[in-house]
């Protein structure tokens, strides 16, 4: 066995150790819903418009 074989073995063992550690470290599987929030701008006269529209809607047959 030559020194290069030895270093190759060490590198292989290192890679196996890394892969094992990473595999053992995956995040817990516990999903949580995180709905996307809305950030649409408020319309300054939106509330007033809604107020005015309401009686008209009620009056519709």
């Amino acid at each position: 066995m030559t020194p290069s074989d030895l270093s190759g073995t060490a590198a292989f063992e290192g890679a196996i150790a890394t892969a094992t550690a990473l595999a053992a470290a995956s995040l817990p599987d516990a999903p949580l819903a995180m709905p996307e929030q809305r950030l649409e701008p408020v319309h300054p006269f939106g509330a007033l418009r809604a107020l005015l529209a309401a009686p008209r809607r009620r009056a519709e047959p």
Partner: protein
Amino acid sequence: MTATRPPVLLRTVAVLVPLVAGGGAAALFIQYSSAAGLTAWAWVSAALLTLSTAWLAWGAMLALIGLWPTPRVPPSAAPVRGRTCVLVPVCNEDPASTFARVAAMMAALRDAPATIHFAILSDSSRPEAVAGEAFWFTRLMAETGGEGRLFYRRRDRNTGRKAGNIADFFRRSGAAYDHAVILDADSLMEPGTILEMIRRMEAEPRLGLLQTLPVIVRAGSVFGRAMQFAAAFYSPVFARGLARLQGGAGPFWGHNAIVRTRAWAESCGLPELPGKPPFGGHILSHDIVEAAMLARAGWDVRVDPDLGGSYEEGPESLIEYAKRDRRWCQGNLQHSRVVTAAGLLGWSRLSMALGIVSYIAPVFWAGFLVAAVADRATLPPPDYFPDPHQFFPVFPSDETAKAIGLFLGIIGLLVMPKLLILIEAWATGRARSYGSMAGVALSGLFDLLLSSLIAPVMMAYQTRSVIQVLRGADGGWPPNRRGEARLTLGEAFEASHFIVALGLAGLFAAGHWGAGLLPWLLPVLLPMILAPVLIAWTSRPAASRALFATPEGRSLPPILAAHDAILARWTGMSDAAGTTSGSGTPAHA
């Protein structure tokens, strides 16, 4: 769920006083300018001065409100019931140093009476950083025996950047935890602080987010140490002022904070803003928006400045600071698209608006200086004989006293808070932890001088940033170069030649059109002309350890010492503090 009642009276005073100060400054300026005849430029100058002075006065108000100390809340000993995960998002950082921080915190929390896990959330893309993370994570796992409580996850695509990285954790694993401590790659927290944060969250079920005041540590350059001193010495008072005004709509600074998992998941799913960057796309400065969305959903968001043991690192040179500032500028200006979002609390809107103003204020100052010179250039020559039949000349009234009063008032707004904080530190004994009172006063004086020299240079950088963003240029998100500081004069010139050119142009313009203004403009123009020298000099390692001393610099906090010891052992270096650059990847990794 009802949120904390806001301090309406204090908030009203805090908002009104700066507006009155701004109005007063404008009135004085108009009186001064009217002596020689009012031009349109004078009105423009007055408007810009109103906004600039109001901004300065807002800072002074925060200091005044935060001046009197808050009694420290004794740490709780209540049993911890919930499960917590400490999140460490990384993106092409030095893995050895970052993972040594995790090792230090895990070791310090080993016997803690709580379930606390750690998750390294990687968005790294550079092959050497990815390989380094794999190597050092193996070392970290072997050393801590962390199986089942230490996790590593890397995303191939960093959608949504840091906010997306954190959100990905919540969507995958959020249900496993009651709380999450959000850190940065350079964050360190004492175990007692983490436990106290969890206990405060458990004691107040309405609390959605609790922010600590991170202290900057490990600065080595002149610039870094000055910033570290200013942050340690002045920030607690400003943060206290902010805390007294926050009600339930406090700040989130993106890291060194704890969040309630359920509150975060149900309130903080960030949408993409319509349109292209810089105003559309992913929300860059997500933290302020997340704080506002939590408050909108009825959760309390709070900063507790009394929580110590919270650390971060800062930029070591003016260039690194300006680069970070460019990102923050774009992020804050992007908030103009969010500030009007439906349902946000008024204080959240004001916080966002103030964030925007903080980046526009230097543009106001620059605009004021340009308008003042333009005013002089367009001023009609004085008419000493307005009536052709008069015998004696009519001289314009001398309003110099008003100009001096205005100048002193503005300087007072800048200096007064720092002076009052110095007195507070002396009166409360806080100054003793910084060394002698004389040493603190000297550090304060040098900080004032240095910040006065740096301010015009930063004004130029920030003005350029605002113009770039308004022109639609996306600054992107360049990675931080933590720990790399020293710049040559050539490098400094390369990054600041436009500031030198602006300074020389200003000098020529003032000399040609407004010679009377020159003495007032020189304190601004000279630092601009000498910007490369200033940048290169302040990036050098500080010669004195006494100047700009901080309590953490004088006596290394235990968690920092633990980190240094681990990193020294890992990398085989005696001085771990100097190894924060590069990939930290060993040759064989």
